[in-house]
């Protein structure tokens, strides 16, 4: 069965790009525009094998989202990758403490994205 | 030159050099031809909506899958005798400078391969006959085919004249 990835980003172009890359690589993709939407989709029964979340989002930011996900029974151990920029080292630490599995530093290209995913997604 | 063009060239080599396909149709006893690449489709005659205050050769407009397409009667345009439309009357839909237009003709006859060397320039017929929209004359077996320069037949200038005539 195809693996499902939940992509959370308020930026449509980023989401499109990430989703497109993932779909090309054979993943199922669920999209959400911010943390709130992502939480709602998870509560609705979405069962992603991986979450990719931007940190900087309106309504509910990435750090809060990661904390929320870790409180969910079903997603306690789901790998979460956060999208960061190179200047946000402190944010990265904060994300890890909140429960993020890893990170991808923007800008990245599709290959790098897939490499990082490969790192955290059980084969 | 791009690979794509090279492909086009390849494809065209397979066809005989200097030969083009023409869709031919009848108007009375005369045979006319238009470059087949310009023909979008051929459809039976159906009821048209007349456009007010336009010359008689513009028969009206037709709904072609949601597009409003003007229809021209070539007989009227060429000042030939008018005939009743019958079940054989057809409309040849052509593309003229990004526009879609239809021409009412008596019947569609054939698709002919005509070689460039068989095409003669339109003869000078004196002032009485306008030959500006004829790209050439060719022989096909026993028949004479008048090849139409479709852009000229239905030019913008023509339409502008229509507009000025109205004023």
């Amino acid at each position, binding site marked *: 069965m195809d693996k499902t990835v939940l992509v959370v980003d308020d930026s449509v172009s980023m989401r499109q790009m990430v989703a497109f890359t993932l779909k090309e690589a054979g993943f199922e993709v669920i999209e959400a525009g911010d943390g709130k939407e992502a939480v709602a989709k998870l509560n609705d029964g979405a069962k992603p094998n991986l979450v990719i979340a931007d940190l900087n989002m309106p309504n509910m930011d990435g750090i809060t989202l990661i904390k929320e996900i870790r409180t969910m029974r079903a997603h306690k151990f789901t790998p979460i990758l956060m999208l960061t920029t190179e200047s946000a080292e402190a944010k990265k630490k904060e994300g890890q403490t909140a429960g993020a599995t890893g990170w991808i530093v923007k800008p990245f290209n599709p290959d790098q994205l897939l490499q990082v995913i490969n790192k955290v*997604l059980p084969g | 030159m791009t690979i794509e063009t090279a492909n086009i060239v390849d494809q065209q080599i397979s066809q005989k050099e200097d030969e083009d396909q023409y869709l031919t149709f009848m108007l009375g006893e005369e045979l006319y031809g238009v470059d087949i690449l310009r023909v979008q489709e051929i459809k039976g005659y159906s009821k048209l909506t007349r456009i007010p205050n336009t010359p008689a050769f513009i028969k009206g407009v037709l709904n072609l899958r949601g597009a409003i397409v003007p229809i021209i009667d070539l007989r009227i345009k060429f000042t030939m005798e008018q005939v009743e439309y019958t079940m054989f009357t057809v409309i040849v839909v052509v593309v003229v400078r990004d526009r879609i237009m239809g021409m009412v003709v008596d019947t569609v006859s054939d698709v002919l391969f005509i070689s460039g060397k068989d095409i003669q320039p339109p003869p000078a017929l004196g002032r009485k006959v306008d030959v500006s929209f004829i790209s050439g004359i060719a022989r096909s077996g026993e028949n004479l085919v008048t090849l139409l320069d479709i852009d000229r037949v239905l030019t913008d200038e023509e339409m502008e004249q229509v507009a000025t005539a109205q004023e």
Partner: protein
Amino acid sequence: MAIDLSRFQETFFEESSEHVETIETGLLQLEHRPEDLELLNQVFRAAHSIKGNSGMFGFTAVGELTHKMENVLDGLRNNEMEVTEQIIDLLLQALDGLKSLLEVARGSGTADEEAIKTIETKLLAYQNGTERERLEAGGPRAEVQDKGATPVAERPAVPARRLVTIMWVPLPELFQRGLDPGRIFQELASLGRIHTLTVNADRLPDLPAMDAEVCYLSWTVELETEKPLKEIDAVFDFVRDESELTIAEPSAPQPPASQEMGEDEHKRLGEILVEEGEITQAQLETSLSKQKRIGEILVEDHEVGPRKITKALEKQHRLDTVARAQRGETTSIRVGTDKIDKLINLVGELVITQSMMANLTQTFTMDQVPLLQERVLELERHSREMQERVMSIRMLPIRTAFRRFPRMVRDLAIKNGKQIQLVMSGEETQLDKTVIEAIIDPLTHLIRNSADHGIEPPEERVARGKPVQGTIKLDAFHEGGNIRITVEDDGQGLNWDKILAKAKQLGMVAEGEPLGKKEVWQLIFRPGFSTAEKVTDLSGRGVGMDVVKRNIESLGGTVGVQTREGQGTKFMIKLPLTLAIIEGMTVRIGREGYIVPLVSIIESVRPTKDMMKTIVGKGEVVSLRNMFVPVIRLYDLFAIEAEFTNPVQGVLVLVEAEGTKVALMVDELVGQQQVVIKSLEKNFQKVEGLAGATILGNGEVAFILDVPGLISLAKNGSSVLV
């Protein structure tokens, strides 16, 4: 995998322009509410998003500028500097630079690189200022980039196969972070061969004290690999920070194997020959100039005739042009996924109904007529709903047009030395995207007029007992099937005497001609009329109110004005919600049907004989409540054979356009319906008196009447006197 990112660029640009708007509006509001942290956060987020995304698409200049803006914004956010007018000004300037850079990235426009450099320097100065303060105060340092790796015994990378020993004591919360040690071993295995894997369970507590979600284990791996340590280390990227990790080379490394060949990049043959000194650059160029195009070669070899080549080249050119046109003309609308989901559901239902009907027709018997009718009804319901939903996709809040105005008014106020506040309401009012785009210019003009000429300078306002700060109100709301937009200022109002004097001077009004109030105000909409005493570079560009009026009318709308001298002016615009669909009345003339737009219809009457009058023998009018309205016999104007030639037998449809009323004579009113406007010009040309065409239920085409056009046509072109 090679993925072309350019297809997402359009979205990026759209998104960026939204972020730019957010920053602009935010900065303008911030000037008044400097303590609003949420607002500041919004602005920061928008800048941050542009920065992050521009990098993805390789627009470095955009990224660099936004990065500097972001830093200043961050400083504001962390209370390291204060929101001042100067900072807002600088950020707004930077934003202008950013807009131009985005345009350039998009492939149009130019950017003043010098100016942008200056702005960037200034931004840096602010940022550095705060950093210096921070240092002086001994506060926390700016974040130091930490890309450092685990302390790995740094030795030159040895690309030979050897046995590397890895000792890893992971953080206890490994699992809670979604990390999987198995995955790490898999990744290690992909780098070579795992020789031994030793589990160390020393940390494992007694069973009762054990927490199943804590990782107590640690591992020692012996990996046989030729990969450099850096790559092995990278496997632990996500776990390194809290783990204990040592990666060690074997004590006696084996001699390095053969050197890896550095791959030469792809080079052209000529370049290599030049490099190796076999030929000179000049020789190469001479030879290259002898190269022929493929077309020429084919012709020379008699493979293909010159005509074919010309044709192929033409086709190539055509394809290029088409491709270019397609690239250039893409405009897009962002649509909420919920709207799309609903449409998809609807299409699903439509398909089901369709297949049910297909089934029905295959085995149809007459007793199934009621069933068929039911299905047809269902189909109708679905398609109507679908039409409404699709139309709603084109509907956007007018905010997209309004949001540029606060900045404009601010700039105009500063420029004119005035104090002006812009109050906007009804920004969420929805209307067609095309209408929104087309209304921007007229609105810009009206607001500029108000700011430049309407609102008085402060001293004048004080002298008149008005508040120093002038107000421009911009409002939008729905009314019936229309949208109304008003632009109102509390300025000096229109000057009756000045307008009249100017009109006389321009010969628009004859001396002594009696004019009503409404007519005088309408004068300002005449071509060539402008009362601006001083021409400003913003509104004195020769584009007058006549253009405003024409633009609005071309959208099927109207514009009116109310003014009180000394108290202000109010412009009122009325627009249809959409250009694609109109409410129409179908009328019949002879055997032909025409559609009259419902907006222009006032009433319809069947006149009695004594209501019909003629003036000077031929001008025909109908008398309606002491008003004489000229009659246009449509069958006459359009040369149609009508059923009735006597108005008493037919119907008169009273219509109004541009302040003129006329009565259109038709045979019969058929009914009212919504029609989709189709262009007649796309494949044909503009026909006077017709606004376009539509397709009726039976598939036939019917024309939509252009009421203003009919009036002028009747005035100029026919025997009917108006």
